[in-house]
């Protein structure tokens, strides 16, 4: 197992190098002179040259990449062009909000998606199953930003139960908690549908296995057969999927944070794009890709650990 983890960690190196190269290219591939975009079109040539030198953009491209890479490893991603704050600090200040939204959304998705999938499979072709299938199709087809707006319209404007947006104190207070309800439900909607669908198909596959038939033949109660025998094995692919969804939710947070005016990393990225704040864009993309890659690694290792049939060779 240790050898497997080490081997898996080693395969990460080329991927992360590629990710860093791609992120580094963001400013270099942008049409026009990035320095001109920073200092403005009317700035004198002397000022342009000064800024170019300050940013190290007058050096050969390989030297620039090496500096970017070593800086990133040390946690130095440059400064925001807008606020002049270190990019790492900008991200660090906003990351907790994004992580909270993504984590709560995953918990909601698992808490609703798995039972829905299990009930759907246990009562195949029943009204519950049809409803769950329709919900799953609707969930994966739903534009999240529209769902969020409709939720604001109903719960915030018409019923006035929940705030329209923004944070209202720490999450452990009632008002603070209320601010997270709509963003998290919005973000959890598609994963609920996908997890329910996957759990259903995985359960149906397992319920056909011989050991389940044997368990039933032994006279075990159906609930016990489903929970103790079928669900434990059916959950293996779901575990992988849930892990991957967590990574995707970090991306999805861009939309919910924008709509609900939450000060997270996603909103930071959109503001940075609109202001052409390239160091921040680079920092956010690099950070999210790193987290996403690490989650994939953890999911792979967890899956191998959970399923003894998987060979580590």
């Amino acid at each position, binding site marked *: 197992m240790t050898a497997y983890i080490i081997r898996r960690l080693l395969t990460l190196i080329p991927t*992360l190098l590629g990710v860093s190269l791609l992120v580094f290219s963001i400013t270099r591939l942008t049409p026009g002179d990035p320095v001109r975009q920073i200092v403005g079109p009317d700035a004198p040539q002397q000022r342009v040259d000064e800024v170019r030198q300050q940013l190290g953009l007058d050096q050969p491209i390989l030297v620039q990449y090496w500096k970017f890479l070593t800086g990133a490893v040390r946690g130095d991603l440059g400064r925001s062009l807008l606020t002049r704050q270190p990019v790492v600090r900008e991200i660090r200040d906003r990351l907790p909000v994004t992580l909270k939204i993504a984590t709560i959304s995953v918990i909601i998705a698992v808490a609703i998606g798995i039972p829905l999938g299990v009930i759907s499979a246990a009562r195949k072709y029943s009204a519950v199953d049809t409803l769950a299938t329709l919900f799953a199709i609707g969930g994966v087809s739903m534009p999240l930003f529209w769902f969020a*707006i409709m939720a*604001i319209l109903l719960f915030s404007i018409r019923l006035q139960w929940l705030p329209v947006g923004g944070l209202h104190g720490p999450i452990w207070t009632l008002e603070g908690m209320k601010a997270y309800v709509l963003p998290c439900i919005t973000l959890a909607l598609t994963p609920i549908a996908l997890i329910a669908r996957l759990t259903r198909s995985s359960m149906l596959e397992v319920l056909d296995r011989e050991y389940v038939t044997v368990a039933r033949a032994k006279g075990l109660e159906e609930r016990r057969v489903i929970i103790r025998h079928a669900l434990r094995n059916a959950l293996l692919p779901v575990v992988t999927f849930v892990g991957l969804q967590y990574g995707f939710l970090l991306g999805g947070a861009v*939309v919910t944070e924008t709509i609900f005016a939450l000060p997270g990393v996603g909103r930071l990225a959109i503001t940075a794009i609109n202001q052409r704040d390239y160091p921040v864009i680079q920092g956010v993309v690099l950070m*999210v890709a790193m987290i996403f890659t690490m989650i994939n690694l953890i999911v792979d290792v967890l899956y191998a650990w959970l399923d003894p049939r998987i060979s580590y060779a």
Partner: protein
Amino acid sequence: MRDQALPRSGFDAPGVSPLAGARIARFVRRFSRNRLAMVGLVIIAIFLIMAIFAPWLAPYDPIAQDLPAQLQPPSAAHWLGTDDFGRDILSRIIVGSRVSLLVGVLATSIGATCGTCIGLAAGFYRRLDNLLMRIMDILLAFPSVVLAIAVIAVLGPSLFNVMIAVGINSIPTYARLVRSTTLSIKEKEFVEATRALGSGDSRILFRHILPNCLNPIVVYSTLQLGTSILSASILSFLGLGIQPPNPEWGQMVNAGRGWLRDAPHIATFPGLAIFLVVMGFNLLGDGLRDVLDPRTSRA
């Protein structure tokens, strides 16, 4: 000697042989039995007709402003109401369907073409496999929205760049899909026989291996069409896609956000259009998968 592609499961090009005709008939019979897939087909057909005949179907000019008629709720004159500039929302949705479907089709085509070529090369040439698949891993290291944002950051916000950004997102999945099929097909005896008859690599790849990859590509593309439309609408909603005053559904929802209290219909109807068209493609894709690619269909 003119060699022929070997039969594949599902359907072949129309009018090739009586065998192919029988396959098409069987495909149509099986597909038409799937009620949800037929619902999807009807939804797509309606939106397609709407997009093709948009200039004739739209009751008003979608861009022309009529300030005295601003923020009107749905009425006989304006079936879906008007926006803050007095523009008819139904007309904007009808004309906007062209943009959404075009983005969906072109973005999916970009992803399918690039991904298929990469998958074919990776599966066929062992030396390229590792390199190409590692590059695909790098693309997969980014959540789709984040990758799209990075692409838009480089290229700038525009409709064409949205298509590229959304298309790039789907390249790795196509590449993996085609690579796995190529790996299994290239070991088959008929490929060896074709090579023995003097066929070159490109002929083997495009005449024999590619036709066998088509079923999963068709199925995935149908599902991807919905995803592409959804992703493009997200980018437009975030202000990174088509710029006003041209109508696009995502951008229309965004414009309606500011009027939720007084005129909720501005954001409601364009969002409903996105939901319906994406659901149509998902239902159609699920139905096609059940018929063409039953091995991967859900239980």
